[in-house]
Structure formats: structure tokens, C-alpha cells
């Protein structure tokens, strides 16, 4: 069972992911948790020690803590957790900031679920 955390201030993201990964969730290969802000995400991660979550997908553009700030904090506290960014702004500045801060992948919105799925499937099979 692979537990991943998706962080986005848009609540409908949850519905979307749950439908997209219905089969994986159903089969018990994947568990999805959601947070709607950076603070909430950090809270979720610190619920268990060590955290069960192995992968964090985060939006960049969020009020309060941005995805990039969250990335730094996660990498700081939980260096083993993979973090990938999902942003509506696929500009090089954001990309470079994310990559230099240790992001694994950088996905642009609208999300290409096929590549996202490949990433997640790879994660599951690796485990």
C-alpha cells in the first residue's frame, strides 16, 4: 500500500484524483490523502512518525504557504519523502526553484494524468 498526499487549495482536486485512481484505490495499492493548504499538509505528515506518506504532490499557487515553501519544509523535515510540483505556471523560474529545492518532478496544469499515473504506478511497483 502506497500512501500519497495531494495538496491543492481547490477542493475538487480530491474528487478528480479519487475518480482517476479509483481502480488503484479499490485494489488497495494506493491510498490518497488530501490537504488544502501547506499548513494542513505539514500537519498530515506529522500525524505519524515516521510518516506513512511517501509522495507529496503539491500545487504551487496557494494562499499562505506556497507549494515551493512547503517543498522546502518537507525536504527539510522528511528528506525521504518525494515531492513533485503541480502548477498552472510552467515557467522556468518556478521550475528551476522547484528542482533546486529538491522536487522530483514538475507537472503543469491541466494535469496530464497519464504521466502522473505512470509516476504513481512506478512508485507502487517499486515498492
Amino acid at each position, binding site marked *: 500500500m502506497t500512501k500519497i498526499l495531494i495538496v491543492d487549495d481547490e477542493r475538487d482536486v480530491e474528487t478528480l484524483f479519487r475518480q482517476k485512481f479509483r481502480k488503484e484505490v479499490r485494489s488497495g495499492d494506493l491510498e490518497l490523502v488530501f490537504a488544502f493548504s501547506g499548513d494542513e499538509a505539514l500537519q498530515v505528515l506529522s500525524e505519524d512518525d515516521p510518516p506513512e506518506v511517501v509522495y507529496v504532490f503539491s500545487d504551487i499557487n496557494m494562499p499562505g*504557504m506556497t507549494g515551493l515553501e512547503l517543498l522546502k519544509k518537507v525536504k527539510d523535515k522528511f528528506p525521504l519523502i518525494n515531492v513533485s510540483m503541480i502548477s*498552472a505556471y510552467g515557467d522556468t523560474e518556478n521550475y528551476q526553484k522547484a528542482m533546486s529545492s529538491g522536487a522530483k518532478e514538475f507537472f503543469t496544469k491541466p494535469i496530464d*494524468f497519464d504521466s502522473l499515473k505512470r509516476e504513481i504506478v512506478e512508485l507502487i511497483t517499486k515498492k
Partner: protein
Amino acid sequence: MNTINIIAFFLVFFFRKPRRGDLPPIKWYPVLNAIAVAAVVVSILNYSVDKEYRILTSLLAVFPIAGLTYLVLTKPEFEGKKQVLYAWLPIIGIEIIKDLVELIFPVFYAKRADYFEIAGIFALIWAIAMWINNGKQAKKLEKDRLIAIERERELEITAKLKAELEVQVTERTAELLSQKEELEKALENLKSTQDQLIHAEKMASLGELTAGIAHEIQNPLNFVNNFSEVSNELIAELVEERAKDPSVRDESLVEELLADIKDNLSKINIHGKRADGIVKGMLQHSRNNSGQKEFTDINELADEYLRLSYHGLRAKDKSFNADFKLDLDPALPKMEIVPQDIGRVILNLINNGFYAVSEKKQGLAIQGNSEHASYKPTVWVKTKKLDRGIEIRIRDNGNGIPADIKAKIFQPFFTTKPAGKGTGLGLSMSYEIITKGHNGQLSVESVPSEYTEFIIILT
């Protein structure tokens, strides 16, 4: 008898001479000359003939003087000389009568010669008196004439001045008219500049919005695309499941898939409407004419513009980040307002708030202030129902407004932003919209280096 001829002879020369300022009576020169010659001839005749013919020459002697008298009395050319003639007439008359009486009644004449002497003296006194009087009158006339000339000259000068004045008045009028036209033109220019400035301000705030709008439209569009794609997949799964034999078919899955598809369709609809609302809002925002008042949910408006402002600033400046907090009163009644105008005010105040907090954050970073790490740049938007009307509070924990600037912030063109960053019209336009457009109040409370809070009250 010669006396009158001598008088006639000299009078002719006197009458020939023009009075000062008049033309000489050239027309009458031949007649005057003839009279002079006649007088001389008659005189000579009078001397040369015998006594018994004297009566004839004496009668002849009357003609030159009578002719001269007639001429002077009747012709207008001699108008000014009549006085002289009047002076001489008694002497002439007395002379004629004396001569005739002497000739016809020599006895009577010898007896009464002294009467004629006395009459002659009176006539002489008369002549002298007339002569003195004439001199006075001539002087007076001369004076009058000079006065008249002077007056005429004055009149001429006056007329000239008048003409000059008229020209000046015409020139001045033309000048004033052209000045008036110039002023009107300048006023028109100012008005159109004002319109342009207002439009520029709107466009500037729209420019600030563009990135936010793009983000705000992109997000719902992504959802529309994603949900329709995923729905397609769900339908494929559904078809697959239904193709199975009823004995192995998972009816609960079919139900779940159908419920999800239905859910997704309504989500597509919601996000489509969201994008639609944003585009409409943007169009309203940029519209030039003042809109109609309509009942509007101000909570919705505040939420929408807060997001637009936030995402706009985020998109424009990657380093920008701030938190925002919405505290909307669910009991807020709908208000009759011009939504795009109030939206513009809310947007402007929120933008200012975000600007203030990011300024403070940058300032703390530059100073190396220890507060920097703990400082949380935040903008609050709060709505509240009042006993009468509603209140919108937009607060930021930025640097605050110094007391000396506070009075100026609603003045047009006042800005603390660096050149090119602000038009200085945002707050003055906001003030105008709230106070004049909606009879509301816009006030500000601030504690330097702590917070700024704008309060809109609409009734």
C-alpha cells in the same frame, strides 16, 4: 455831394477785402470796380459842370452808393460787412438830404444849416459808435471763430480717438473670443484627459488583474477538461461492466459510476459558470460607462475580487506571497450597488493591502530584522451587517500609514508608490465611487508599522 462819393469809393475797397477766414468776393469784383469808377466819374462831373446842372450830378451821385448799398444788403458774400454799411448809412443819408435841400431850397438850407450840422455830428457819433462796436463784435466773432475751430479740432480728435477705440474694442473682442475658444478647448482637453486617466486607471487595474484572471479562468477550465475526460473513462468502465453477464455484474459499481458521472457533470457546470462569471466580471470592470445599480451579493463580490487580486499578484511577482482571510457575514443582505464599481473599490483596497504587506516583508528582509521570520503578511476582508446598511473592512498588517500622509491619501494623484507603479488615482476614485456614487462612507484607520484598515459603509 463829393462826400458820399468819397465814402462810396473807400467802401468799395473795404468791401473788396475779404474778412479773415473768408474767401474774397471775387465774383463781385467787376461790379465793385464799376461802382468805384462811377463814384470817381460822378465826383469829377460834379466839379466840372455849372451850378445849374448840379442838381443832375447830385442825383447821379446817389447811384454808386445806392448800388453798393443794394449789393451789400442783398448778396450773402457781404453778410459780415453789413455792420460797416449800417455805420455809414446815416452819414450818407444826411449828406444826400443836405445836398438835395441845399440845391433845391438854398434859402431854407441857409436858414437851417446848423440843423444839418447837428444831424451830421450825430451821424458821425453813430458811425464812431458803430465802428467801436463793430471792432468789439469782430473781436468776439474772431474769438468765437477760434473757439469753434478749437471745438472742431477737439471733435476731430474725439472722432479719431473714437475710431481708434472702436478698432481697439474690435481687436480686444476678437482676442477675448479667441481666448474663450482656447479656454473651452483646454477645458475639453482636460475633460478628455480626465476620462482617459479614469480609463487608464481602470485599464491599469485590469492589467494587474490579467494574470489573476488567466489563473482564475485556467483553473475552472482545467476542471471542466479533467472532469469531462474522467467522465468519459467512467462511461467506458460502465459500458464494460454492463457488457458483463448479469450474474457477475457488479451492480453497486454501476450505481457508483453513474452517481460519479452525474456528480462530474454538475461539477463541469459549476466550473463552466465560474469561468463565465470571471469573464463577465472582467468585461464589466473594463466597461467605460457607469453601470446600473443592481442588487448584489457583496460577499460573493469580495470573494471573487480577493481571489483575482491574490492570483494576479502571485502571477506577476513570483516572490510575492501573503495569506488572506475572508470573514464574511452570512446574514449580509444584498445591496443595491453598481457591482463593477464596488468591485473596483474592493479590488483596489485589497491590492493596496497586498502591496503594503509585501513592502513590509521586503523591508524587514533588507533590514535583516529578526521579525522577518515570524512576520506573516496577511490581508483580511470582513463583511458585517449593521443595524442600518453594511460594513466592509479591508485590513492589512503592513507598515501602516503615517499620520501626516493620512489626510492626503484620498487626493487624486497622491501616491507613495515609486514612479510608474501607481497612478495615484486608485483611492481617489474609490472615494468618489463610495461617497458620490453610493452615498456611502470610506474611512481609514491605521497604526504605523502595525496595520491599515479601510472601512466602507453602505446604507
